[in-house]
């Protein structure tokens, strides 16, 4: 029973990891860019949520209404201002520029908020639980998982059933010809990053409610997101959800064996999948 509980908790945790990963996956899909600052942007969103909740007294989940558009705007500006210039065949510029960005964001957060761990207060939501088949499931983890599923469904819908999604796919296929269709690729990339950071904002707020955070944890979140993407398979958002779940379960089960093994178990699961299925479980595109 206790093991079942771990697996279920891990599954729900996977929802949060899938949210970390979704933005990463989207950006890679549209512009073949891997944003090393992604984790730090998640943390930035958490801090923005913190500022909004402290300033307005809003519930953290409601703070999303302000933080999500703010992060989307930041994403658009970042893409058009800096990242668009790094795109091209060379691998180094986007990697090194986003790495530099990561250092800047981390230290900016340190300057403004200090290194003290922070946490957002979601009130009763944090401790509420429902009883399902003898297990006590936290409402917050359930909600997080549900949000993850909804976000991924939303992204899938956007990608495959809207004109914007068509534009994303076209630009990712062939930038030049997409321009012939009247698509300004700099604008399209900006929108893609805005969308990715909007998702990241949701992830950040949920993170900030769930655990305490400080400016240095960005790297760890990036790695979780990345592992979820690789396990699930590149180019497949539902696969990313599965990847997140596998990672979450590996971590919680590992923690059950020995609390010090939590993170290591996740990495080991990732490495095992990498050995057995280098392209992930449900790949759609190759790296």
């Amino acid at each position, binding site marked *: 029973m206790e093991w079942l509980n771990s697996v279920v908790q891990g599954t729900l945790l996977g929802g949060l990891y899938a949210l970390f990963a979704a933005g990463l996956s989207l950006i890679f899909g549209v512009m073949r*860019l*891997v944003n*090393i600052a992604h984790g730090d942007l998640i943390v930035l969103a958490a801090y923005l949520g913190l500022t909004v909740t402290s300033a307005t007294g809003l519930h953290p989940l409601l703070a999303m209404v302000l933080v999500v558009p703010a992060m989307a705007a930041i994403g658009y500006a970042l893409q058009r201002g*800096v990242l668009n*210039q*790094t795109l091209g065949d060379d*691998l*180094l*510029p*986007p*990697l*090194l*520029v986003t*790495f*530099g*960005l*990561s*250092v*800047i964001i*981390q*230290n*900016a957060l*340190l*300057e403004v908020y200090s290194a003290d761990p922070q946490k957002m207060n979601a009130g009763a939501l944090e401790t509420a639980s429902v009883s399902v088949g003898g297990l006590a499931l936290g409402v917050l983890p359930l909600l997080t998982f549900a949000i993850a599923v909804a976000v991924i469904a939303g992204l899938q819908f956007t990608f495959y059933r809207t004109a914007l999604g068509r534009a994303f796919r076209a630009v990712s296929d062939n930038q030049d010809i997409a321009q012939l269709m009247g698509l300004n690729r700099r604008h399209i990339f900006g929108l893609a990053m805005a969308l990715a950071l909007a998702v990241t904002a949701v992830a950040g707020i949920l993170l900030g409610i769930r655990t305490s955070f400080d400016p240095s944890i960005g*790297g760890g979140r*990036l*790695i979780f997101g*990345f*592992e979820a993407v*690789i396990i699930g398979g590149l180019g497949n958002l539902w696969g990313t959800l599965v990847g997140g779940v596998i990672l979450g379960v590996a971590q919680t089960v590992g923690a059950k064996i020995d609390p*010090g*093994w939590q*993170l*290591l178990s996740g*990495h*080991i699961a*990732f*490495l095992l999948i*990498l*050995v057995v299925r*280098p392209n992930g479980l449900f790949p759609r595109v190759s*790296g």
Partner: protein
Amino acid sequence: MTYKNYHVTRTSQAARIAAIVGAVVLIILIAAPWWAGRADLRLMGELFLYLALASLWNLMAGYAGLVSVGQQAYVGFGGYMLFALTMFGGLHPTVAIIAAGGLGALISIPVAALIFRLRGAYFAIGTWVMAEVFRLSFAQVSTLGGGSGTSLPVKIVKSLASGRSARESLSYWMALGAAVLVVAAVYLFLRSRNGLALTAIRDNELAAGSLGIDIWRTKFLVYIVASALTAMIGALIFLQKLRISPDAAFSVNDWTAFVIFIVVIGGIGTVEGPIIGTLVYFALRETLADLGTIYLMVLGLVAIVVMLRAPKGVWGLIRARFDLQLFPLGHRVVRTPDKGD
């Protein structure tokens, strides 16, 4: 009718001058324990170790196209091997350093086998994951201090040399020696057949492959060698620090972020670049370090601006302007002086 002759050569006037200047500078540096103060000696030693790390990272990223943000794995590994081999293996520290390099080579093989399944930026993050695995694993080893780390026993420290100034001179010379060794090794490697293959791969992988160059074997080799030497440097670093802990040993900031900035600012893909970059980095650090986080933000910003505006770094700008190569690698056509008609 005058008939001018041309011949193909590798060196140039500038390279010859640089070699002479370099030799003089080297002699001055070797003599440093006699003219430099303790703090300056430590600083220079640190500079040499960073130069070595930067040259190795540059070899991997700038020539082999292997962008790793996980070399801290080997720095920490080397450090821990030093501690383990001296404390439990009874080895003399200098022997342990070399052994750490060998062990670094060994462990890099399975690591490479795993992460070479990833490409590009995913490879980069994969190297970071491996570094995390190393960190978490060593944190579990209680005999080496577990999560909080351990200090090098006095007995072992004293076995290096008797007397503190003798030890500091020795540390300094080892750091200088390491830097010279690494830069020389990188330079000679690039001059060799393998180095030529590497440059071909960097310039056009498809064409290189069609010439019969085994791309993956070459990259694999570079990864092993660079990681082994990085482990050796790591051992040296922690011999100087006298204390090790998982967070310090495997710190992304200390051993990767700063190294990357050095290489990017100095000039990636050139032998001279890391040297320039290390000097610039330390100059910035000595002047700005009081500003703490602001200093790091400035560093990040400078790296971004350099990458966007001058992707070949400071040395790249100099080289483009003056067509200089101090470490002769390329061939050039030179006119043979006329012998009269």
